[in-house]
């Protein structure tokens, strides 16, 4: 399947962008400046205390990373390599032990930086007692979207991912696939310029894969930047021009996706080879 954007494919969140509330627009700041990287990470380190003795474990060690605007980058690595930790740090959920994160030139702590991020977590932290529409409405208000804009965007996104009929169903009753589709909705609700997707295809059925591809195409069409972590080489091939490899909390390689993954996309062989080298 060709996942490249087609000329006639208009992104759903485009409508939402037109109608941003003044607060949301103020938060986002000027979008026209091409100079700063979409994402700039310097010496990012994360250490945890683990176990009875509270011994420190390094999850990420001095990660350096830069994504140009509109660049789509894949992030691969075996279990426990730090992919999800890196994305949580970039989304501002966790606090780094050291290092800096800049989004379009602004420090992550600044609201205008966070307003431009759309994060799809690997888990499902959303309140299970609320319906999809209610949570989207709440998140839209926290993003500063005007009421009619966020309601329209939520309705369109729910329709697009096939959850319109379940808009009032409590999220706790959703299946895994429905939860992932909802996760896509909340990540794209405010038409973010930087997408951080953690394992977006887990739990999605065949139709869900198509929906995801359409939404990503739409995001690419409006110029979004993407960093996607995945265990599935197929998710990255044909979509990401560059792939980063994370091993043991360190970025050990970066290069063209097709070159890294090859046609067969054998990630295991790649990990073994890189581990042997390092």
């Amino acid at each position, binding site marked *: 399947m060709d996942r490249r954007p087609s000329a006639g494919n208009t992104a759903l969140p485009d409508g939402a962008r037109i109608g941003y509330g003044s607060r949301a627009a103020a938060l986002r700041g000027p979008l026209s400046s091409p100079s700063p990287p979409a994402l700039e990470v310097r010496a990012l380190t994360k250490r945890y205390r683990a176990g009875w003795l509270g011994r420190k474990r390094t999850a990420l060690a001095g990660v350096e990373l830069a994504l140009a605007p509109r660049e789509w980058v894949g992030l691969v690595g075996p279990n426990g390599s730090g992919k999800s930790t890196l994305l949580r*740090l970039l989304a*501002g959920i966790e606090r780094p032990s050291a290092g*800096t994160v800049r989004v379009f030139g602004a420090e992550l702590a600044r609201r205008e930086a966070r307003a431009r991020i759309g994060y799809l977590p690997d888990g499902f932290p959303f309140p299970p*007692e609320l319906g999809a529409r209610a949570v989207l409405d709440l998140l839209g208000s926290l993003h500063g979207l005007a009421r009619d804009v966020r309601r329209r965007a939520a309705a369109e996104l729910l329709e697009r991912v096939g959850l319109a009929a379940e808009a009032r169903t409590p999220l706790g009753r959703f299946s895994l696939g429905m939860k992932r589709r909802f996760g896509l909705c909340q990540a794209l609700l405010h038409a973010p310029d930087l997408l951080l997707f953690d394992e977006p295809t887990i739990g999605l059925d065949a139709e869900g894969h198509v929906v995801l591809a359409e939404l990503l195409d739409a995001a690419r069409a409006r110029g979004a930047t993407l960093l996607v972590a995945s265990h599935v080489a197929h998710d990255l091939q044909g979509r990401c021009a560059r792939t980063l490899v994370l091993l043991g909390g360190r970025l050990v390689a970066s290069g063209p996706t097709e070159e890294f993954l090859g046609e067969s996309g054998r990630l295991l062989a790649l990990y073994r080879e890189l581990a042997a080298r390092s």
Partner: protein
Amino acid sequence: MARLVALALRRALPPWFLVGLVALLALAARASAGAPLVAPAEPEAAALRALARQNVWSVLLALAPLQLYLAARLGVGGARAWLAPTPARAATLSFALAAGAGLAALATALVAALAGELATDAGPRAWRRAALLDCPRTVLMDEAASVRWSVPAPAPGERLRLWVTVALGAGPTATARFTAHAGERAVAVETRAAGRTLLELDAPSGGGALELELERVGAGALLVLGPEALELLAPAPSERLDGLWLGARVALALGAGGVLALALASVLRPSLAAALVLALGLAAGSLPFARAWVPCADLPQVWAALEHGLVPEPVPLRAFAGALLVAALGVCLHARAFRRPEDAR
């Protein structure tokens, strides 16, 4: 903001908790709704009504740890995982969550107050303790069967309540007569005292000090006048104030405690955070210099006032201030834990 407050309220007061609370309150109210076998005098009837209120409020006090736990769950990292990526300010998010926890405490206190007041009738007259009056400590026996002392003249409409205790002598009971003299006018009440017995009379109005006399009439047990035996009671607007003042204390304590538990839950497990808040509250309530600032620290005194058929004192202003301080501390702590990476620098 309002939506987040509503969500926090819903999570701190989930439907299953509310339904269970109402059911238990209804059971407690029903358990104390029976009519007494012997029609009691007014002070005893007031005490019975107070007992019914205590039954109802006991349910909420027993569930307080669970309510604190539910509030603490709002502050765990799970909320951060979906709220932190938004551009909303950490202080705004923390305040909204804290407001939800506070509203949940207010709602439960309101439900308990409603249940308590629906379960009991209001008495014909309500009284509150206006002052403790001086009273000699003595034992009345055959050789010295009466004692007289004087107190400042009470205001019109006020009432004197004297507690006497029986010490076994020639029999298990004794007849006690309590008289108040105001110039030429005198008012007396006489009763058979057994155990700890109260004698109550409306203070006669007249100029100058009030002369009081307690007599042991005839043979029988010894009558003991102990410390804090004489109370001056003033009329209170209504017995319904019981629910109001109890509810205010409980709402303040649960609200402030819930916000603190929410904040502590960002670094502790919710159950540990709730237990720590309870322990801190009990410890602060037992410290003489701190207890005035802790909303429910005077609960034993309030409980005793209810048992004696009196309307408890209003919530002290310092308890209000203490609750606000604790809640503000909780919001600050939670916001600090919620801050984005570079904010901490």
